């Protein structure tokens, strides 16, 4: 994943896609997913979605079509979930469920973990008691599968979000601390920025507004530096 979202990154990925298209079409599609991610972080949702549509088209010709389709669905689902179209949250939920079924069928645990993390995010946005419980279930599932330290860190963040939604501030706070530690060690500013936004919310819920502002300002500085417009807002 690109550390910085800016037009240089877009240009780099465009060239990488052209390069991989000649050598390895599957890698070209995966690079398209990286580019979609950069567009999404730049706040260019439509460009991200059209990149994913292009990836879907290109994936049809690949030998690993099903794997790629599952990966594309997993990239599309959270972008859909934030959209403003009719029923977009339900659509995102269906996409993530379909990707999870595909990942299970393909016996790809890492994809399964990403699907579970996606479901945790999407279900959380419904904000009901039932969906927030399910969100925690899927976030725990994703964490149980993850092995890579970077993936573990983002799964800890996702699980912490689940507890924050249920206002379990003790557990949320402890999980965010672990996620921040791993993100700092890995110099993963994308995750660090995301964690700090939510630790700011924990401070707010504890009515420590000065601390909440400090955390939010740190998050804003990081997200501005890396160009993550989704989180600058």
């Amino acid at each position, binding site marked *: 994943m690109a550390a910085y979202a800016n037009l240089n990154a877009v240009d780099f990925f465009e060239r990488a896609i052209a390069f991989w298209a000649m050598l390895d079409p599957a890698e070209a599609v995966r690079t398209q997913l990286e580019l979609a991610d950069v567009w999404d972080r730049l*706040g260019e*949702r*439509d460009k991200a979605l059209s990149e994913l549509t292009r990836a879907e088209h290109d994936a049809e010709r690949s030998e690993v079509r099903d794997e790629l389709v599952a990966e594309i669905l997993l990239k599309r689902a959270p972008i859909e979930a*934030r*959209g*403003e*179209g*009719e*029923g*977009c*949250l*339900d659509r995102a939920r269906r996409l993530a469920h379909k990707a999870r079924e595909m990942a299970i069928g393909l016996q790809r645990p890492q994809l399964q973990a990403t699907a579970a993390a996606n479901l945790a995010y999407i279900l959380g*946005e*419904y*904000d*009901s*008691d039932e969906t927030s419980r399910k969100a925690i279930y899927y976030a725990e599932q994703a964490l149980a599968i993850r092995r890579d330290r970077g993936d573990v860190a983002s799964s800890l963040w996702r699980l912490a979000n689940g507890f924050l939604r249920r*206002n379990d501030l003790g557990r949320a706070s402890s999980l965010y601390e672990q996620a921040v530690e791993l993100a700092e060690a890995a110099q993963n500013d994308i995750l660090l920025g995301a964690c700090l936004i939510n630790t700011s919310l924990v401070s*707010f*819920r*504890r*009515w*420590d*507004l*000065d601390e909440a*502002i400090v955390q939010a300002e740190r998050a804003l500085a990081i997200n501005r530096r890396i160009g993550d*417009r*989704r989180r*600058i*807002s």
Partner: protein
Amino acid sequence: MRGDITAAEPLIEESLANSRGNWIMTTLCQEGLADLARQKGDELRAQALLGGAVEMCERVNANQKQTFYLGLLAESLWATGDLGRAVDCLERAVEVGDGVTLSHALLMSRMGNFTDAIQWLQRFRESEPDPDRRVMATLALARLWWWQGDLERAKKLCEQAITVLEPTKLQRYLLPAEVLMSCLGGAAGDAVNKPGRAGAHCGAHVLGEMALDVATLLSHRCGEWEPNIAQRFIALTVDVPDRGLAFRIAWVRANLLEQVGDLERAMAVRERARQALCELREVLPEMHRQMFDEHPWVLEVSRYRVV
């Protein structure tokens, strides 16, 4: 939240401009701006923003959030005296979501449904995730116990609300709790002075609630207060923009005007209170009007006879 509207508003406006295509950010910004608008007394802008958030949640099928925004919209509509539309919002919220929200409970207490309001407020004062809303539930519950004569329980709740606010002492949130505490302690002089300095910190709807608490205290032992306390309350309540509360405050004001011997003004204010109550009743749907008519404040107005 921190109380600096001037700094907060452009930041939220900027976020809203950058969040096109993202319903989560858009509705959060609309909620934040609506809060600032209410703080500035601009209920109509707050209603437009919250209406936008409701529509957005409906479109994307985010039912729980739609319920929450419908509740906030109902609170604002109540403050502008649009009781019928407020009740519509609450009914829609129940159809869409899992059940009632804190907004339902707050307005139940205004409608006179004290039994249900107590039950729900008790639940929300424990379960509301945001401390400011938790405090709002706790203070509303304290008021209900006070109105029902359980002063000790009311005081305990008020103390608990103040404890929640301890980590960051902001006048916007602390003053309503302090005014209520003074009222519960019978400290009329202290209570009647505080709303005067709250204007710089609190929205018109919150000032209305503070005036209501003072009115409740002064109406308890009407005739026993020193004239200067009555005069200060009379001066404080010349204009109460919260139309859902205005009739009650005007009624107590009329009683106090009588007490200080200004009978002519008392009569005029009493008539205004009656008129304000009639206007509220007219816009309430029939089934809710019956309950509203049983509210002790409404009964007090309707039973009053000039001798």
